[in-house]
């Protein structure tokens, strides 16, 4: 059983729909092409949260009884909710690229996994990219962070502040309140202060508005780098040509040039099993849905192998996720060659490899293209922060470290 907490309505539906489509289509593909995983048919459940915490809890409680193997809530708020609960219930949580970053510390967070990347990795990747553009020296450069004024948006601040000390750039912080339709003040401030780079942690309508405003003040788009949640088609399309050159982080490859799309067409779309109306197919967030589903189902496959049963329990799933590894050959065989980096998980490290790439928007072609490899991030800084934050959590909740 794979529950999926989706949000196809409400203020963040824009982002929620393509992701949910991708996730659902991948599950449908496995069922229709392979008859499930290891002969066991996948029971795929969607539950609508509207990005709302209480609804998320309702969904969790509603579905957990049905033998749910892993939860991917796609919302930092709901993730925070579920961290203690899922741990108590013994169900693993996979929060790829969102949620609580310090959950990468498996010693403290036994049931929480946030591979392959997290926000602090993201923050560091942005700085690394800027470093690479400036031959490694960004002393005195000004970098502004435009962020969603919520737990999610505040995640990168600590890391950026650490990196600020290390590299000597100047960071300025510009919060934007939910929902973020009115950002005149922030962008006038950017216009005045002329930062060299702007990075953004946005979500929902905040993204297209920011990109539109950036285009309006003629901020050089190639110096504007969003996190992976600010880099999908829905964010750049409303700004039209103005968005050309905008960059964002990526944790997987873009486009529909993968063999899996042929299979999807044959086994899912053409059979009328597609979750969406087809417009989302090939979009960044759709691919992310595929990727999320792939990581979950591959872990399940591993769990079947490890436990020797076809019908695995959440505990088996958790053990498999902790022993999880994936490499290029595996991904190629799944129809996703060159899609995402290889990595492996361990008891200590639930956070994956700490790699991220940069993609850029081409407004004419209406396409995202990868412009970098998956680059290594500043593990030194990040790990120290993770250790600190998870230690605080452990102390607060009287958790004894594992893996020792």
């Amino acid at each position, binding site marked *: 059983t794979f529950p999926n907490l989706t949000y*196809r*309505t*409400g*203020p963040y*539906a*824009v982002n929620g*729909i393509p992701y949910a489509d991708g996730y659902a289509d991948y599950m449908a593909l496995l069922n229709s092409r392979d008859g499930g995983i290891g002969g066991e048919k996948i029971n795929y459940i969607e539950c609508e949260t509207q990005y709302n915490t209480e609804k998320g809890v309702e969904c969790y409680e509603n579905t957990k009884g049905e033998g749910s193997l892993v939860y991917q809530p796609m919302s930092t708020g709901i993730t925070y909710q579920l961290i203690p609960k899922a741990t108590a219930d013994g169900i693993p949580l996979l929060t790829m690229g969102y949620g609580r970053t310090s959950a990468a510390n498996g010693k403290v967070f036994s049931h929480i996994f946030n591979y392959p990347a997290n926000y602090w990795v993201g923050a560091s990747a942005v700085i690394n990219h800027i470093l690479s553009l400036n031959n490694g020296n960004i002393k005195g450069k000004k970098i502004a962070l435009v962020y969603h*004024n919520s737990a999610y948006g505040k995640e990168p601040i600590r890391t950026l502040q650490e990196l600020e000390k290390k590299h000597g750039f100047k960071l300025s*912080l*510009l*919060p*934007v*309140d939910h*929902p*973020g*339709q*009115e950002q*005149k*003040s*922030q962008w*006038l*401030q950017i*216009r*005045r202060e002329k930062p060299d780079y702007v990075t953004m942690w946005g979500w*929902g*309508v905040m993204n*297209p*508005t920011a990109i*539109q405003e950036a*285009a*309006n*003040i*003629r901020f050089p788009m190639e110096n504007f780098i969003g996190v992976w949640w600010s880099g999908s088609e*829905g964010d750049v*399309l*409303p700004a*039209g040509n*103005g968005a050309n050159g905008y960059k964002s982080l990526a944790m997987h490859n873009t486009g529909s040039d993968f063999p899996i799309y042929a299979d999807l067409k044959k086994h899912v779309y053409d059979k*009328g099993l597609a979750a969406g*109306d*087809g*417009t*989302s197919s090939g979009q960044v967030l759709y691919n992310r849905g595929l990727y999320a589903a792939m990581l979950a189902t591959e872990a399940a496959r591993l769990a079947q192998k490890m436990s020797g049963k076809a019908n695995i329990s959440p505990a088996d799933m958790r053990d498999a996720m902790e022993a999880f590894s994936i490499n290029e050959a595996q991904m190629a065989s799944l129809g996703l060659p060159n899609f995402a980096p290889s990595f492996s998980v361990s008891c200590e490290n639930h956070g994956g490899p700490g790699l991220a790439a940069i993609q850029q928007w081409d407004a004419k072609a209406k396409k995202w293209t990868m412009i970098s490899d998956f680059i290594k991030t500043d593990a030194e800084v990040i790990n120290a922060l993770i250790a600190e934050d998870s230690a605080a959590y452990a102390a607060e909740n009287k958790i004894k470290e594992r893996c020792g």
Partner: protein
Amino acid sequence: MPAEFYYGVEVFLNGLMAGVMYSLVALGFVLIFKASGIFNYAQGIMALFAAMTLVGFQEGQIPFAHLINAVFGTEVHHFGWTMPTFLAILFALGMMLLFAFLVERLILKHLVNQEPIILFMATIGLAYFMEGFGDLMWGSNVKRLDVGIPQGGNFWIEENTAFLGGEEFYGFYLDTLDIYATVIAVVLVISLVLFSQYTKTGRALRAVADDHQAALSVGISLRGIWVIVWAIAGFVALVAGIMWGAKSGVQFSLSLIALKALPVLMLGGFTSIPGAIVGGLIIGVGEKMFEFLIGAPLLGGATENWFAYMLALMFLVFRPQGLFGEKIIERV
């Protein structure tokens, strides 16, 4: 003059512009409140719905495609034509008219002479309904809306003011879209004021807001009045939807601009059309200047939302009916 000063002026000007954008939304509220004493919670959703409809017509979307596909297993999405903007606007207007008619028929007619809070609640129900209905009809994905109004900083103004403030200043930034919005808002307000102040219908509107039953007893047809007013409010919603939709795409969050209109409304007075504009300007300037002078440098930013309300609150303490609202009659 130091550059800081001109930046202050720039923020001020942009505040005015932002205020006008709020006023566009606030106008819809005022109209309905003035005409029936109803605080129309659904105004934001109406703007969203109008914009969605416009895009839907423009792009030849098949209404309820998603539902149809789910029920019949078909794969229909588009009619395959695109409609000229002008025509699409006309169709969208027609839709809002129909909407006004149905609202009267199905809701208001049954709630004559009820207390304001109950009518308010009914509009909340309406808002829920429209939210579901709009999404079902046109889908909840983000849509790009383009009616041909240019956007982005106005070069001409920028270049011709760059000489001010020396090296550090590069001319005033004003969004062309906002300039258009201002012109439209001014035209709207003037015509609405003329309508409500100098026509028989305008007087009837105010009578209805005071006392439904007495209005009925002198032969004012509530139904007619309501249809007219809701249709006009629908039209205003369409305008607001177009302007805001052009800024950040048509999607659910568009309906949340209603929250930005509320402080404008209370500052200007619920019953005053010019109040909506003046209130908008004051709120726009106030919140932007506060953020510029105090919010961002001292309080860590993102103060606009609450400051707008605080500002309105301060005005209300001195004038409980808003700047231009009708005086609240207190007598025994």
